[in-house]
């Protein structure tokens, strides 16, 4: 277990020892800030009775942040280590493949969540401005953050998988972005396309991340959403583990 924590610490250290970590945090803050300002402006012009946060998770801003930052967070995990050779140094110590896979995933996820911590401050100032009590309802905040964590977990797993495929960080980021945006678009308003067979629409609606986030932001913890995220995350972690193992295939 202590080996696992040493690895997670190393992953986090990698973000904070370089500028990239701070740039990502700054970018998240900037984009969420823009998103909220934009939203408040719109509500002022046309009042809407849902809480601001709930609307926020439907905006493209939130998804822009998730879709853009996750490849940047995860691109280094394997690709950079393979390129510099530290991967070889790592894999010749007595650590298990699963330990490496889970630690890299955990490190990425913790960093992803850290980038959202300042958002609590944003919520707080929003409440000061709007006087909306629901913003700080503990259950709502908790479920919202659980939602962010679930979505983040899925994107981190996808990103780690992409990074494990290559030694180039750029390719890792591009592949992670493609996979990420692909998964997100699958469930993005499938009924609107009008081209899909009728059975496909409800199936794809189950995968609608925008819908999931909407419900999480209302404080609704829906079991089948959780199952969806845990399954897809697990699937990508499993695939990553297979890639890590593959070097030992003859």
């Amino acid at each position: 277990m202590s080996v696992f924590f040493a690895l997670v610490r190393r992953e986090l250290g990698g973000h904070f020892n370089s500028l990239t970590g701070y740039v990502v945090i700054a970018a998240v803050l900037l984009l969420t800030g823009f998103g909220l300002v934009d939203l408040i402006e719109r509500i002022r012009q046309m009042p809407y009775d849902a809480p601001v946060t709930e609307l926020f998770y439907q905006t493209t801003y939130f998804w822009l942040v998730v879709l853009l930052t996750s490849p940047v967070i995860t691109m280094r995990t394997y690709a950079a280590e393979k390129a510099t050779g530290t991967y070889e140094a790592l894999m010749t110590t007595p650590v298990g493949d699963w330990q490496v896979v889970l630690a890299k995933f955990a490190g990425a996820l913790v960093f992803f969540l850290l980038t959202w911590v300042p958002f609590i401050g944003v919520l707080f100032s929003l409440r000061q401005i709007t006087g909306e009590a629901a913003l700080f309802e503990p259950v709502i905040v908790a479920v919202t953050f659980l939602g962010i964590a679930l979505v983040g977990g899925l994107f981190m797993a996808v990103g780690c998988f992409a990074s494990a495929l290559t030694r180039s960080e750029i390719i890792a980021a591009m592949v992670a972005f493609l996979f990420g945006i692909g998964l997100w678009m699958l469930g993005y308003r499938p009924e609107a396309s009008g081209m899909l067979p009728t059975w496909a629409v409800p199936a794809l609606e189950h995968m609608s991340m925008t819908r999931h986030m909407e419900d999480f932001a209302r404080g609704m913890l829906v079991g089948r959403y959780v199952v969806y995220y845990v399954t897809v995350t697990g699937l990508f972690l499993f695939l990553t583990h297979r890639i890590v193992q593959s070097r030992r295939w003859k």
Partner: protein
Amino acid sequence: MESAAPMIEVENLTKRYPGRTAVDGISFQIGRGEVVGFLGPNGAGKSTTLRILSSFLPATSGTARVAGFDVFREPDEVRRRIGYMPENNPLHLDMRVREYLKFRARLKGLGWRRSRERVDAVLQQCGLTDVAGRIIGQLSKGYRQRVGLSDALVHEPDLIILDEPTIGLDPHQIRSVRALVKELGKKHTVVLSTHILNEVEMTCSRVLILHRGRILAADRTEDLGRRMSLDGQVVAEVEAPEVALLEAFRDLPEVEHVEVQPLDGNWRRVSLIPRGGVDLRPLVAAEVRDNGWPLRELTRSRQSLEDIFIHLTRGKVRED
């Protein structure tokens, strides 16, 4: 039982990549306490062999055991017992020296307290105490190399594997790294790879020469020198009958060995290996003059790795 097994046993080890055989059925043994050098040009299969031994890569066929443990079936047992410094000494350049070594010690299964003790010990041993708090990326290459060596030592492994430990260093740094390796050899079994002949002579007790994935020679370092007494070999191209040439040179006390090869026309190439490092050129010149033979080349070759390979590959052909 464990101590009875040789440190490394390799049998018929082969590693094939698509379209290329990196290691071609090599077998060797390395005993405890030996310092062995893998010598060979780039692409000889040195790194591949070391990667298999450190259980990073699987072999295509054959077996390799470290301290009696199979590198493929019992990788964790093997990894616990080796300290491996990969080619080009990869390090996390953003970490500080002490932080990095502590991290590595934890990965290698040392407890919190033990890792602190060991890190302090290796910092001392490798002369890194002064730079323990510095960021690795800001250190000179010589210091980085010592960080890599410290990492290989930190868990007190039975076997230390170093892939090209002095590559890219300046002569001064090379000297200090070699001194360190020599020091390590007193307590550990050390396997290192290099393409510098000198290095093997200075640090290793035994040498394995690899070429195109095969072992050309495995010898104690001092025997290698003798066997490769190419030093001072003289080659002359003379227009004379083979018998006359052999007779002229065979019985000279300064000559250890003569070889005559036919060339174009009546020209012959005479290769002479001297006894005890004598310069044979004046002798050859005198002999040729006395006999009135036409001479078109007279050179003395210096011993180089290249020569050794040529020598060895020729020997190989003859044996076959």
